[in-house]
């Protein structure tokens, strides 16, 4: 079997800054078929009324600059071209953008925190955030989303040569929020990018984190934790495009689901293009189903167009709590309820532990406890 030059998947082929270049999705398209379009409140078809408010509040770490800029700022839109209609809509509609800059060779231990608070779910809001980490700089950025909103945004992470960026994005919206977000990471030579998405709240959250490499040596680790309650739709669509040699990517997303109509969607697309020799990639999604009535759609998709890879694999598993785990813990005197909590905590905790900011890690732990108490 010969290797094709182009991937079979056409999911990520279309790219345009113009909303009109994208058809209004009907729900039959591959990229929209899992998303309940009716609950998007018009973000996808141009009918959303756009005077909603999502207020950004910034706590910049020393040495990091944060600016609020207009649409014409030349630093915006360099890391990506919108690849779906909502992303293009957000690009066309935002009024102001936040630009975070970590200057060259600046190493910052403290996190820079951007808090987004939605005040109104009835009207749509659009946002744009660009994080630029200049060569050999290192920084951590926390994005925290709370409140009530109908919100679409693009987030760009431009990680320069030899630079390192760690991002933790918390989606802890109120029950009536809708959030469609695209997180685009562009990695320079030997750049390192670590992303944690923690998605807990909101009626519908659809996140599309993507990674592209500009040069060899890039290293991306994408982690995600989600807890889906009854009626919630939490969707994560990952795309790692290996088109440069000797880059690495790791994806590990884990979720728990409980109660009727809790719906988790995980799409993991990885393409290793013909020129990406020496690629090392692995992606994993696991879901723990805690009650009846939930639904998981988990679709890993790995396309390899070169024979010269270091490693390439993917795995997806969704299942109930293991009776043997519960029996073992109960056989040591631990009640069934506590045993269940311990297993869920352990399952998600392995990713939470990796969050490098202690306060954020603790907050996420507390939030998971709160989910377990529901």
């Amino acid at each position, binding site marked *: 079997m010969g290797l094709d030059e182009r991937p079979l998947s056409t999911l990520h082929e279309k790219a345009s800054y113009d909303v009109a270049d994208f058809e209004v999705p009907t729900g039959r398209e591959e990229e929209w078929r899992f998303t309940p379009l009716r609950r998007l409140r018009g973000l996808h078809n141009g009918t959303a009324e756009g005077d909603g408010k999502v207020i950004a509040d910034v706590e910049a770490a020393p040495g990091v600059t944060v600016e609020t800029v207009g649409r014409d700022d030349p630093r915006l839109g360099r890391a990506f071209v919108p690849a779906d209609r909502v992303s293009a809509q957000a690009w066309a509609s935002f009024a102001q953008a936040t630009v975070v800059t970590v200057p060259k060779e600046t190493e910052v231990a403290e996190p820079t925190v951007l808090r987004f608070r939605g005040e109104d779910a009835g009207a749509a809001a659009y946002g744009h955030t660009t994080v630029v980490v200049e060569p050999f700089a290192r920084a951590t950025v926390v994005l925290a989303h709370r409140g009530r909103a109908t919100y679409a945004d693009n987030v760009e992470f431009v990680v320069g040569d030899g630079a390192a960026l760690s991002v933790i994005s918390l989606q802890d919206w109120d029950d009536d929020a809708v959030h469609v977000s695209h997180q685009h990471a562009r990695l320079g030579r030997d750049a390192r990018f670590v992303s944690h998405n923690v998605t807990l709240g909101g009626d519908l959250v659809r996140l599309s984190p993507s990674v592209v490499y500009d040069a060899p040596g890039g290293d991306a680790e994408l982690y995600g934790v989600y807890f889906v309650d009854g009626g919630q739709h939490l969707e994560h669509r990952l795309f790692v495009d290996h088109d440069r040699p000797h880059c690495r990517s790791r994806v590990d997303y884990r979720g728990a689901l409980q109660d009727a109509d809790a719906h988790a969607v995980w799409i993991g697309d990885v393409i290793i293009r013909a020129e990406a020799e020496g690629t090392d990639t692995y992606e994993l999604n696991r879901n723990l189903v805690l009650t009846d009535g939930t639904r998981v759609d988990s679709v890993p998709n790995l396309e390899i167009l070169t024979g010269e890879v270091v490693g390439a694999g993917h795995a997806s598993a969704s299942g109930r709590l293991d009776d043997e*785990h519960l029996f073992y813990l109960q056989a040591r005197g631990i009640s069934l309820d506590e045993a269940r909590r311990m297993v869920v*905590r*352990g399952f998600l905790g392995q990713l939470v532990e990796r969050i490098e900011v202690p306060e954020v890690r603790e907050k996420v732990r507390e939030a998971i406890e709160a989910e377990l108490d529901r």
Partner: protein
Amino acid sequence: MATLEIRDLHVSVGDGAEGAKEILRGVDLTVRAGETHAIMGPNGSGKSTLAYAIAGHPKYTVTSGSVTLDGEDVLAMSVDERARAGLFLAMQYPVEVPGVSVSNFLRSAVTAVRGEAPKLRDFAKEMKGAMDALSIDPAFAQRSLNEGFSGGEKKRHEILQLEMLKPKVAVLDETDSGLDVDALKVVSEGVNRFGSGGDTGVLLITHYTRILRYVKPDFVHVFAAGRVVAAGGPELAEELENEGYEKYVKAGASS
């Protein structure tokens, strides 16, 4: 004084299309404080079923008979209630629980069994002492429970739990299987420490006589085809060592 009494215990496994299969066919056994009982028998004789039925594993259904601990009806208790009442099962194949550390697990178990959370410092000290006694590297405290442990490490951790939870009666399900002789000695010493106080009972299930050189049984019961077919003292183990299970397998099959 602790007494575990098993009377005419019948246990089946499975339901569904193939129907239930009876594994235990009338087991009588009494384990008193200060006593060590060995249950020996060939593969498939129902030894492990007895262990799991006592612990309350959902896969096994007790169809008749009784199990009591100090007169309390064990069969009416949930799995965790049995453990809190003073029963302990050292598993033949301890499961791996990702993300739950050994120390977190032990503390949760100790808290549940003792009815109150031990002070953190006291607990850390107690755990370290118990780990030292079993030659377990302290680094294991932070590792996920049983995850990536060798067979011997898993069994040591079962005995660690035994020594920390201090049950009234411990059932050890083939704790000796898969151990090299050094690990067997360490594990046996742990069992002996547990039994040495005289106020606890041990029910040691094994396929081999090897462990009985280190853990001296007061009573030996031979299991075949789901019931006790012979009982005696330590001399019965000697006989099994020399002659094997053959005559008991035949006896069990024809009864």
